[in-house]
Every structure is written in structure tokens, then in C-alpha cells.
């Protein structure tokens, strides 16, 4: 019963997200609306983490599996990729590395400088 209830809550929130996606003219997918709704429900104490904990842990754990069908679908896209395959791959790989490096380094630098000022204020 516990899992049924948890899964029911998560599906209901996904459905609410879907509705918002249909009603509001914004380029925000149902999943992101749902994420914000669940976060708000937890934040305002309407739901407790215990109400969704086990099922959400399970779903997050098996999340990589859910990407397999779309990735296997790359077989179908080969037709449009092959015309320009080298630039496409270089762009994808290089920009992913650069973005990961820049956002990680910037986050780390700002958070370190933040710690220092806090320490100075305390001193």
C-alpha cells in the first residue's frame, strides 16, 4: 500500500505538470513543472518526504535506464548526422567539456571566496 500511495502522489504531480504545460504558453516541460510542484509541496509542509521517499529513491536510481530507448533511437537519426559528422561530434564533445569545466570552476571559486568573507566577518 505504501508504494501504491507514493507512486500515486508522484503520478498525480506529473499529471498536474502536464496540465500546466498544456495551459501555460511557456516552453517549460511537464517534468520541470512537476519538479517545482513537488518541491513546493515539500517546502510548505503539505507533503512530507516520507510520503514519497522510497518510490522517488527507486525511480531516481533506475533513471539511466529510461534514457536507453531515446539513445537507441540515434540509429534512426544517423541519416541526418552522417552528412556533417565530424563538426557535429567535435562541437558536441568540446562544448560539453568546456561548459562542465567553466561552470564547475566558477561555482568552486565563488563559493570559496564566499567562505573567506564569512570567516573575515566572523573574525
Amino acid at each position, binding site marked *: 500500500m505504501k508504494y501504491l500511495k507514493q*507512486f500515486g502522489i508522484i503520478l498525480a504531480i*506529473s499529471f498536474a*505538470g*502536464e496540465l500546466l504545460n498544456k495551459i501555460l504558453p511557456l*516552453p*517549460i*516541460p*511537464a*517534468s*520541470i513543472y*512537476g*519538479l517545482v510542484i*513537488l*518541491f513546493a509541496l515539500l517546502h510548505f509542509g503539505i507533503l512530507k*518526504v516520507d510520503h*514519497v521517499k522510497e518510490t*522517488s*529513491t527507486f*525511480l*531516481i536510481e*533506475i*533513471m*539511466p*535506464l*529510461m*534514457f*536507453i*530507448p*531515446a*539513445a*537507441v*533511437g*540515434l*540509429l*534512426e*537519426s544517423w541519416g*541526418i*548526422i552522417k552528412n*556533417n559528422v565530424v563538426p*557535429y561530434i*567535435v*562541437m*558536441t*564533445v*568540446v*562544448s*560539453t567539456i*568546456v*561548459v562542465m*569545466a567553466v*561552470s*564547475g*570552476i*566558477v*561555482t*568552486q571559486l*565563488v*563559493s*570559496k571566496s*564566499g567562505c573567506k568573507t564569512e570567516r573575515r566577518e566572523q573574525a
Partner: protein
Amino acid sequence: MNEMFENAVFFGVTISLCAYGLGLIMQKKFKIAVFNPLLISIIITMLVLKVGNISYDKYNEGAKYLSYFLTPATVCLAVPLYEKIELLKSNWKAIIAGIVSGVITSLGSILAMAAFFGLDHKEYVTFLPKSITTAIGMGVAEELGGYVTLTVAVIIVTGIFGNVFASAICKIFKITDPIAVGIAIGTASHAVGTARAMEIGETEGAMSSLSIAVAGLITVVGASIFANFM
């Protein structure tokens, strides 16, 4: 024989699950980044379809039920995020700075390389949303007049690449702070990368989840501005 497989609804799910399981075993055994369960399962499934001459549509008739859970699973990312709310509050400046600089880097690097390779406008805007989650990225590509199917392909490749090499990239660039690692992975490689961040740690996973939403939304605005540059 072939028809037997093609008409079985559970074929697609079973082959994906088995391939993933095999990937997990290989990862444990070899402990090398390339032996990533997601990557291995994709390759094995592709091989099975090719060798067995099974069409993607037939495979997907069963496998689509795996994709079906993607929305509920993404909704669930709110839980680790909520559990790390204090961390988020005390580091919000660093987090916003990291995500914004990542998005600008993404758009800027695409612009630079598209110019370098002499891509046309339509190809250029196709790549602009490459680092954000598929559902938002498709919308952006459509809005800007790109090749939507190509955008989806590039987004998936970006995610898989991030999933496989996230740990190595963070190590090379000495990104060790768990918050920074999470922001880096989520901003660069959306939900597929986040699946990896979740395996690295709770903080990494929570911060990566946050980046999917924030980077996605900033890119919607940023891409429409960058679309005018080429």
C-alpha cells in the same frame, strides 16, 4: 523467428534491462569510465537490433514504457533537492554564478565552433540548446527554426558523454567541491548527466537536478538572443 520477437511487447524492455545489467557487471569488473552501464546498454541494444534485423519502431513499442517513467522520475528529483535546501540557501551566489557562466559558455562555444566549421544558421540554432534537457531543448530548436530531430540527437549524445566522462573531466579541472561537481554536471549534460551525479553523491545529485531546471530556463532566453549572432 523475427516476428516472434517483433510482436512481443516485453522484448524491448527486457533487452534494455539485460543490457544495462551487463553494463553494471562490466563497470564493477573493469572500473574504467568507458565501461559505463548506460553506454554499454545502448551499444548492446543497438547491436541486437542490427544483428537481429529488428526495426527501432518494433523495439520501441515495448521500450517506450521505460521512457514513460522519465517525467515522474524527473519530478522526484525535487526530493534530494529539498533535502539539500540549506546547502542551496547558503551557496546560492556560487550556484547561480556557476550555472549562468556555464550557459553563456555553452552558447558562446557553439557560436564560435559553428562559425569555425562554417555551419549555416539552421544548423547553428539546432546546436544552441544542446546542453539542456530534451523537452526544453526541442521547444527551443523548434522556436528558432532548427532541425529538431538533430537537436534531440545532439542533446542525447551530450548527456551520454557527460554521464560517461563527468568524473574524469571534474578530476582534470580539479573540481572537487561536491556542489561545484553537481552544478558542472547538470549544467553541461542535463538529466542524463544528473543520473551519474546521483551515483557520485547526494549533494552532487541535488545540485545537478537544480541545474537542469535553471540552466534550461536561462538557455531559453539566452538561445533566442544568441540566434541573432549568426
